[in-house]
């Protein structure tokens, strides 16, 4: 128990350290964008007819605290984020970022996690069967399909589905809500409406995630299948599904649980593009908008930070879950 507690604490400290590092990376990126908030505010005033000078900008910078050194401002930002969960204001939209994001980030996270779940629900059984089958045709086909999942761009799949649904059903299936629910409060009807549309991004994101997961499961199972304990179990007369699930599958699933965080990373990578095509109103599309159109560094920074934070959290949770199940993991405190 003590060992487990120690493991948890060290892992938590490491997760926090990673978050700090990430916040530094994100903050540096935000700073690198040409122009700062003071210039943005005054540029807005300029369009209203007021004439502004260099001194005005300097005064505004002082008012916003932008004349302080880089590390001090980073510390400020980090403590706001960590202690109060505040990301500050977006200087372009002049709105509080928390209000702006609202439940959009949670929706994105939900979509991505569901896609990941779907991917593993398919990949684990299929991967295990593929690894233990000696059927060359089956294996070759699976390999080809999963490579195709990698090579076939997500947006192409999205476009094809959109085309088919437009031609066949007369509904383009885009967006996350139908018109009457777009700005409504959360209610049961809204949830139903959401679910009737969210399956499409979940399916598209899950498609390539499944391809990837299938490869991993199959490779790990192949490694385990040749080990001595499996042969020993087979010699004792175990066979078929009972053998697979009780021996090699258990060992193969450990590394898979461990890499869930990086799988989530991969799904997040694809989210903005899919969101842009399906015109989803969630954080991925907002991020793309902030970066490609409005150059809104505060909003973009907040979203990237939140995405990374959820990956770090998932990594932490899977680590702890594995340690709870497998005592060997607890001993290797730092190793990974």
């Amino acid at each position: 128990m003590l060992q487990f507690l120690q493991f948890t604490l060290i892992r938590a400290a490491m997760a926090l350290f990673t978050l700090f590092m990430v916040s530094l990376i994100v903050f540096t990126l935000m700073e690198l964008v040409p122009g700062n908030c003071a210039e943005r505010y005054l540029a807005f005033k300029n369009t209203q007819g007021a004439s502004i000078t260099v001194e005005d900008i300097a005064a505004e910078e002082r008012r916003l605290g932008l004349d302080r050194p880089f590390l001090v401002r980073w510390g400020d930002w980090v403590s706001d984020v960590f202690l109060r969960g505040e990301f500050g204001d977006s200087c372009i939209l002049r709105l509080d970022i928390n209000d702006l994001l609202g439940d959009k980030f949670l929706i994105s996270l939900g979509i991505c996690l569901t896609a990941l779940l779907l991917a593993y629900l398919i990949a684990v059984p299929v991967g295990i069967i593929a690894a233990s089958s000696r059927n060359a045709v089956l294996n070759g086909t699976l390999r080809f399909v999963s490579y195709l999942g990698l090579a076939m761009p997500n947006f192409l799949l999205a476009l094809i589905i959109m085309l088919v649904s437009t031609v066949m059903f007369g509904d383009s299936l885009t967006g996350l809500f139908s018109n009457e629910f777009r700005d409504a409060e959360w209610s049961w009807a809204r949830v139903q409406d959401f679910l009737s549309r969210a399956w499409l991004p979940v399916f598209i994101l899950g498609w390539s995630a499944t391809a990837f997961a299938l490869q991993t499961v199959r490779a790990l199972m192949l490694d385990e299948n040749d080990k001595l304990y499996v042969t020993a179990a087979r010699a004792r007369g175990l066979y078929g599904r009972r053998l697979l699930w009780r021996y090699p599958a258990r060992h193969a699933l450990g590394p898979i649980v461990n890499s869930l965080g990086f799988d989530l990373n991969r799904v997040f990578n694809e989210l903005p593009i899919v969101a842009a095509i399906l015109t989803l109103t969630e954080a991925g599309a907002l991020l793309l908008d902030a970066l490609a159109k409005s150059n809104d560094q505060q909003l973009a920074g907040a979203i990237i930070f939140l995405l990374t934070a959820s990956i770090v959290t998932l990594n932490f949770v899977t680590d702890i879950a594995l340690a709870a199940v497998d005592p060997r993991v607890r001993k290797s405190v730092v190793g990974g």
Partner: protein
Amino acid sequence: MTQTDAVETRRKEAYFTASQGQLIWARFRRNRSAMIGGAVLILLVFMGLFAPFLSPYDPTVAGRNPDYTNGAPQIPRFCDDQGCSARPFIYGVTRERSIETNFRWVTEIDTDDRRYLQVFVEGDSYRMLGIRGDIHLFGVDEGKIHLFGTDAAGKDIFSRTLHAINTSLAVGTLGVLISFVMALVIGGIAGYFGGVIDGVVQMITDAVRTVPAIPLFMAMAAFVPDTWSAETRFFFISIILGLIGWPTLARRVRTHLLVERNQEYVLAARLAGARPGHVIRRHLLPSFTSYIIVDLVISFPYMVLSETALSFIGLGLKDPVNSLGVMLQNTTSADVLLNYQWYFIPVLFFMALVMAFVFVGDGLRDAADPYGERG
């Protein structure tokens, strides 16, 4: 000794004295899907390298065909109702837009107007591998030929596709090289020194690895001012790809060095009086060059995919430059989906390129693994 025995002995001797490269090649050759992937890959690289010569027209606006915008692919044929010809030909077209056609361009194919295919025709001038030229592999005697059709500006999609392969491969190569150098240095330091330095480097690497790459790419690419020229943009994008691609590779280099530096042969070399530089150069590096090459090939499709994703959302390369991402971006409108499906032809090339790389990388990985041989 009989002759078969002699052959057998020679075969065994060849096996025992074979260099690592020969062994890898021998194993690689037996993998059919990897060999097919390799052939496709070589073909695509060849197409990319000699794009200016192989493509009939300039891929930019300079080579556009204003009389055939959004034109369908023209497939050369040998025979039609009026008989056959040894030289393939296409039909001439006339286009009309008037009140009768509801002000849309309507293309009429004129089957009486045969345009014969020519080889080595003079056309737009180009530079290829530093050589100037204006001879193109093929063309038609009259008008222009568009194997894959044309886009909205009348640019030849076949020519654009070939040049796009070139650009995407170049961006990928540059990105892989940059990340390779960074990975060697960072992974090398962590692996060679070990201990505390290794721990710190690992933590930083893990932090960089946790940030989703595409949003990070997007954030960095968003700094590119619109005023930059196509070439500067191109280099910047490659550098970004390289800067973010290094952690995975660095981890592999580090793991490998950590294992190898404790091997007996390194100890033996050290005991024999070899200096560290000599040990690294003559013993450590050759022990894993093949693995590094495999890793590079495996990471290549991800570079191409990232470039495509960036260009696709409009943050990467932009229109005068032809990259696969730019070509894919053109396919997104509903108009294209419903009316101009030939815009999707470059997508097939893109998929072929990625698949070829993945199969070759897979085959190489299996071939480079000395314990992978079974039976």
